[in-house]
């Protein structure tokens, strides 16, 4: 299966080939890896990859997989699902709330032509202001929120369409 993680441009191609007792054979990209897995009483287990051991645990969700490898935790999505939004040459024609929070200020209105790095909307969560800006030029197709409104993680805040003479990717990017 092909997996993506937020903010990582890479697409990971991983396949479970076999599991024979403790030995787990997995293909990661072109490389085939043989790891050892020892389940622990607590539901997770220990994965040994050429001599190094990782306590691992995983949870399946509808469209993502959460895994912990030691203190590092990851959320993988099926690449397919992350591609769903591809439309008209835009990787992400929408500005998505990266976290649940409150919309503090909306800095653009429908029809505005925005430039790369231009702040579009400011949301607040956990006492911190986060400004979402365009990654490259685009046209504001529709502003879907207003100041003061609470928005959930993943909510579409602003719809964008390609800028004239530009099909550059547009996506949410935080600027401080």
């Amino acid at each position, binding site marked *: *299966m092909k*997996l993506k993680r*937020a*903010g*990582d441009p890479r697409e*990971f191609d*991983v*396949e*479970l080939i*076999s*599991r024979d007792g403790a030995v*787990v054979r*997995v293909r*990661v990209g072109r490389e085939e*890896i043989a*790891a050892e*897995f020892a*389940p622990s009483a*607590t*539901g*997770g287990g220990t*994965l040994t*990859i050429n001599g*190094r051991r*990782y*306590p*691992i*645990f*995983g*949870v*399946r*969700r*509808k*469209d993502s*997989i*959460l*895994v*912990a*490898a*030691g*203190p*590092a*935790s*990851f*959320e*993988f999505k*099926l690449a397919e699902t992350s591609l769903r939004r591809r439309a008209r040459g835009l990787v992400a024609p929408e500005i998505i709330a*990266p*976290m*649940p*929070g409150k919309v503090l200020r909306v800095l653009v209105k429908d029809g505005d032509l925005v430039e790369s790095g231009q702040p579009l909307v400011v949301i607040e*969560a*956990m*006492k*911190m*202001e*986060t400004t979402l800006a365009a990654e490259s030029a685009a046209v504001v197709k529709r502003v879907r929120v207003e100041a003061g409104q609470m928005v959930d*993680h993943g909510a579409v805040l602003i719809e964008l369409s390609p800028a004239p003479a530009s099909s550059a990717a547009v996506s949410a990017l*935080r600027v*401080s």
Partner: protein
Amino acid sequence: MVVSSQSMKRQLKKLLVANRGEIALRIIRSARLFGLRTVAVFSEVDAMSAHVAAADEAILIGPAEPANSYLDISKIIAAARQSGADAIHPGYGFLSERAEFARAAAEAGIVFVGPRPEVMAALGDKVAARRIAAEAGVPVVPGIETGEVSAAREFAERADYPILVKAAAGGGGRGMRVVGESAQLESALEAASHEAAAAFGDGRIFIEKYLARPRHIEVQILGDEDGGVVALGERECSIQRRHQKIVEESPAPGLSASMRTKMIDAALSLARAANYTNAGTVEFLVEGDNFYFLEVNARLQVEHPVTEMRFGIDLVCEQLRIASGGHVPKSLAPRGASIECRINAEDPEHDFRPATGSVLHLSVPSGPCVRFDSHLAVGAEVTPWYDGLIGKLICFGADREEARRRMVNALDEFALLGVTNNAAYLRDVVASEQFRDAKLSTHFVEEFFAGWHPADADITAALIAAAMTADGAFGEDRQAAGAPRPGAVNRSPWESLKNFELWGSRR
């Protein structure tokens, strides 16, 4: 001395804890130890959280929005009246540094566990605090006590850029801006003032020379009603992100004995000058052999456990003793070294963007010289409403290196699934050469850990784990799969990925 509410000038009976999360839980524990009944207050989204369960009584004070719950003085005073609490502990954050809160408690005949209102007011205003420090002979950073544009520009030309714009009522880095050149000045003043007004209802700002590469070192103080004052060593808090501390330790590495003495003396004279009572922290910026007064935190600090570990003391019990009219302890001898890591619900790969979620899996380190203060447990929710601090991991050692290695091992034992967090980031920070060699400044994070990402080896391990998970090795997140109760059956896209039989040992 025995920790006890007995035989005190004022014998307190019931303490209301005006806070939430790990600190509310931690305060409740020590209050019980001190012999007090405890009252928790909570907002609607916190109804099922740990501090509510831990207290002897719990009172709902409002909706999630802090302004209508944890920041609502009248509701909290009402809860104290309703429950018959004779004392209030504010914890940190929220109302902990609001003089009017302390005043409201006093007017309601309730003991406020903290300094007197007028002292809080004076020290809470950074401009006023600067004056008090200067008058007490404590060095302060060159600066001006106004945010007025022309004066600011004049100062900036004189002192030379960069300069730092700060909120008079500020805290936690909010309403703070570094200005590198005159072009940015006006907008920075405006932005800082705006943020300060929004955050503290007080838009006043002031300006200081921006120190290039300072360390942040603070001194823990305790003062009692009879003028007794004591300092419990220092804490190094230079490792910060977004002006918020993430790793703290005591003692401050490489701090000379003479510097330590000077800073402690400065903290004590400031405390005396301010007639300081209860627990507080005097923060300094240190550059070379110079140190400058930064601010006083007139409350318990998040990082107070690093002091407790070295001094073998319970600072919350000391606060309660002082609030009961008792005295500060005779100055104690510290031992060894301790380090704290703040585990935050945030994404270190994306500018520490706040994260939320519910805890699906939690593995907590333990054993000798390891302490974990947290309200987390499997099933707990991290909401967007409050600060992202979800746990404090504190390790002690005979010396810094022992404490540091213990922290690396402890973080390696830590695992949290369901809420994006900075544990792996902290692990890499504490394990780094730069931290081992104490290359400390408030720029540590930008200098050494900008653009941090998990190691490829970790990602590979995670991918293998993901493949096993997709195959059903560890089961579903039943809640997410929409099955609130055990016994329900899942449909999952992952089933289709399975390419061979379930195996026996799978759980």
